[in-house]
């Protein structure tokens, strides 16, 4: 299940930048490819992905490339021009406009709001948001659709490789052991005891010792998954936490985890 191994195992061809993908007529070039004299070439390192007549390259290791609708967790680095600039680990500049933030009342933002932007999010705050749109210069606009997005506080952040995060239907989860996880598509996860899916003014609560232990376990599991390059989803985390509770050796854990994931 390690990514490199997976590529070898499935016997997928690896394309390097400049490698010709196809000279067949009728094919269209998609993401990470370019066309020259009727031939399509790869522009990055990755594997081929063809949907009908559209060919594209799925890069294997790369910095995060956002897609519309994805959930990200990032750090505010700058406040300027009614905008927060957010570091989400992508190559392109990512901003959240004041008008794109959620406030409980349904009203237009005023100058007062602009003056008080720092009260909403200050520098070095971590926030959770959704990718709203991508401009032509590849810069990224974020928005916070509802109350559950916004500032994250009083929990544990965990960085993993972003390509390990599995696309799921929901990205706000409650695990079996009562730990609430937010999966940021950019590789940052947030572990806490806050159920952000319910509508509530303040999510923060005091932690019990058991909750702290559980968060520690999940955090360990994430480090383990990241180390061994295993895809991260609700299922894989829960399974791994179970396996670790049985005090298995690292090797046994991995073996059983692979078995579990392959079955799915």
């Amino acid at each position, binding site marked *: 299940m390690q990514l490199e191994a997976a590529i070898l195992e499935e016997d997928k061809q690896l394309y390097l930048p400049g490698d010709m993908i196809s000279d067949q007529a009728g094919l269209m070039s998609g993401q990470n490819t370019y066309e020259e004299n009727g031939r399509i070439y790869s522009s990055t390192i990755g594997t081929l992905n063809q*949907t009908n007549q559209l060919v594209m390259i799925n890069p294997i290791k790369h910095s995060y490339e956002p897609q519309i609708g994805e959930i990200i967790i990032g750090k505010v680095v700058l406040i300027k021009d009614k905008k927060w600039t957010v570091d989400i680990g992508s190559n392109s500049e990512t901003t959240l406009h004041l008008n794109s933030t959620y406030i409980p009342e349904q009203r237009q933002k005023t100058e007062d709001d602009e003056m008080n932007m720092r009260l909403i999010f200050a520098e070095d705050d971590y926030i959770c948001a959704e990718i709203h749109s991508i401009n032509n210069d590849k810069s990224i606009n974020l928005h916070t659709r*509802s109350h559950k997005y916004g500032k994250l506080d009083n929990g544990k952040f965990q960085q993993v490789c972003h390509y390990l995060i599995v696309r799921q239907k929901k990205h706000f989860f409650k695990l079996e052991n009562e730990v609430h996880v937010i999966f940021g598509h950019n590789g940052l996860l947030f572990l806490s005891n806050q159920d952000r899916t319910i509508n509530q003014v303040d999510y923060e609560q005091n932690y019990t010792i058991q909750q702290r232990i559980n968060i520690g376990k999940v955090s360990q599991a994430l480090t383990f998954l990241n180390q061994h390059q295993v895809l991260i989803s609700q299922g894989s985390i829960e399974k791994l936490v179970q396996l670790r509770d049985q005090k298995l050796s690292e090797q046994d854990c991995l073996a059983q985890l692979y078995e579990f994931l392959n079955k799915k």
Partner: protein
Amino acid sequence: MDLFGVFEQGAQQTQFEEADVEIIEPIEEFKIIKQREDEGCVHEWYAPEDHVKLENPKRMAKNYKFNLDPFQVQAVKCLEQYESVLVAAHTSAGKTAVAEYAIAMAKRDKARVVYTSPIKALSNQKYRELQSEFGDVGLITGDVTLNQNAFCLVMTTEILRSMLYRGSEIVREVAWVIMDEVHYMRDRERGVVWEETIILLSQKVRFVFLSATIPNAGEFAEWICRVKRQPCHVVYTDYRPTPLEHFLCPAGADGLYLVVDKQGTFKEDKFKEAISKLEDGGDKRKKKSTEGSDLFKLVQLIKAKDYAPAIIFSFSKKEVEGFATAIAKQDLNSVQEAQRIEEIYKNAMNCLSEEDRQLPQITHMLPLLKKGIGIHHGGLLPIVKEIIEILFQEGLIKALFSTETFSMGVNMPSRTVVFTSVRKFDGQVFRWIQGGEYVQMSGRAGRRGIDDRGICILIFDEKMDQDVAKGMLKGNQDPLNSSFHLSYNMLLNALRIEDTDPEYIIRRSFHQFQNERQLPEMKQKYQELKERTDKIQLENEDQVQHYVDLTQQIENVNYEMREILNNPMISLPFLAIGRIVRIKSREMDWGWGIFLNFMKRKLPKNESCVMLDVIFHVKQRRKQLNDPLVPISWLEQGEIEVVPVNMDHLFDISTIKVNLPRDLKNPEEKQKVKLTFQKIIKQFGEDGIPLMHPIKDMKINDQQIDALLEKKEKLQQAYQNADFKITNQQILKFNEKEKLLTSQKILRKQIELSSKMVLSDDLKRMKRVLKRMQYLSKEDIVELKGKVACEIQACDEIMLTELLFSGLFQELSAEEICAVLTCLVHDENANDKFVIKNDKLNQLYGKITDMGKKIFQVYQDSKINIEEKEYLASYKPQMMEIALAWCQGQTFGQICKSTDQFEGSIIRCFRRLDELLKQLQEAAKVMGNRDLETQFNESSKKLKRGIVFAASLYL
């Protein structure tokens, strides 16, 4: 008085019973309190039980120059409480005043307000109206975007919906959403957009719904209360500021008959008089020729009696034009008026190019307009349509011929409304105009503050039942019923967003709500049925059951046997003339008769059946009254009749044959036949006539028959052994009980269906399609193709996405892309015999149909219920050549000459095409193909020129 004091005391609680068969969990359970109070209008409100009303309303946000009507006062009071309200009133009653108040409130509170309307043209008009009132107003439709940072935005509902899926600052800032003509929600195709929008909007948003006088307004408000968890008021009024008088005008006769007066009483004597004046004789052709002259007379009458201006409704574009030209001999305007018309018209047309001003439709229209006669239908150029609307509002057009479309729109009242026909073609049949349609159209009559009464004239050319007429003239609006259905675009969008999924939307839909509302009633009915069943007491029920079972089985065996024996190959040789046979179908026992003749008859689908002519003894009947034939015993009084029967109903063949006389028409001979038969019956008895034995007599060698005979024997044995002592009454009772039990079963099934999530089967099937075609992964994650399909709203998203991914557009020029795309956006019905002359286009159309077949195959495999022919016919090639010619630079005049399509239809098609091209550019971006994006941009540039995209006069 304190309205809301009553609210607390008399709180009635609507009970939501726990469902018997609970399959889905209810969405948030809370009690809804219903209250009602009438003060000059019906005022009902529904509120969650824990709702706390606001104290101390602020100062009035807006003052009116006129005194508000009671219903307006009520509605404004609700708005001041920051609570949603549904205003159901006639068009002329002044619903707009309520909407304006909400806008004024939003302005006061520095919140945003969105005004949605069902049609682009309506949005344009509303934009202009609101701009003159509030100044800072914006407009967003598929065609134009103006001042989108304004606090008040006018848009089509579709735009608001896509904003909700995509997320937009407007959605976050809007405090009030005003939905005009919300009864449009019952529209089969587009109605679902309203439901989606209402469901997706934040719970903090307050609504103002403006609707026609729908009878189930309360139901709608309760739904809003349930899904948005906020109070919702209904303000309903039947009030018309100017009362209506309804006249009948019999075709071919003189005069008008006042059938419904100002007070709304139906005058039966007048109605009868009008009907009797109708020309006798059902000659349709004759009527057609008189129709024009009827109208001519009527228009003269309107002019003479000063009933102008009048709107004259017909139901087809051709009729509208035909009538208008027929009337054109008259001049309804003065010279000054004609001059003004010319001036306004010329001014408006100046925004067109020199060339376009010479278009036949534009040059031909002016002389007609100058006479005070106007035309209004969907086939007109938008600019012509708008100038006519403006002229009409100015009072310069005295007679406006129009299709139904004019009845939906902004305030464009007239003094008189004329209906040229009482029937309308609804796609399948010519049916009577429905009450709701009549109310909507007749609502245009009577200008507030100008006329003391509005006049409706109904020309009719065929006899009408009084009930039909009453239903039409005094009819009510149809109830607002949900037309919720799923679309692929909705599924993909909902699956893509973190916060929703399709189930979320379906469960909150009005459709689901209406469905669940029937539950308590059905459950009660079920309970009643159960009680009635339990009441029926039967003695020794087991035995009766056994008896009924046995007789049933014997019967079944008999029928099975007949099925084999009735094969013409087996039975026909034994059917000689004069053979006595018994005919019995499951429904009716014809008894004994005499076989006469047979013949084969062909049925559709290559089947055939054999008909037997049999002589029966029937009850005497009066022929001219078409009495049904009733067979009676041969011993009673009756007559002899030859009846053709299907051979399937042949029940028994006897061994007896009688000699028939040659001429059966002779009464004496008939009597002889009767006598012979009576003798036979007396000899053997009615049940004792000897039968042909299948094996012994007919010598049939069939194992099945052997088995059946054996079975029958056993059953008969069992029957005798059981020695039943059962009265007829017991059997009747038993049958009644059985019947009740079956209806119980059916009802139970219905209850189960209703308590399930609606459309859940459709959802499954459609997801299957999406998964098969790689729009969704196995885990319901939206894949690349799905993301592309999300961008497309202007046409069939699956078809277009497939075409995009097949690489078709890559090889095409910008002009050809436009031509191909017309197949997807053009939706008007036209003749089937259309042939594409251009070879390349023909080939391209072939590719579309090929793709259509492929997609259909997937649909079929996924058990989606559509007809292949119907599906393929939804891609119409009529506009292809026109679009190609236009993009290659031909003038509008040239392309109009080359086709029989209406100018308005061409423009509508091109505008939709442009909208689609915009969406395609986004789609190409998602695909990551820059070339394609520039190509679509190129197509859009080629398309966008001249009169087709001339700005609306309202902007």
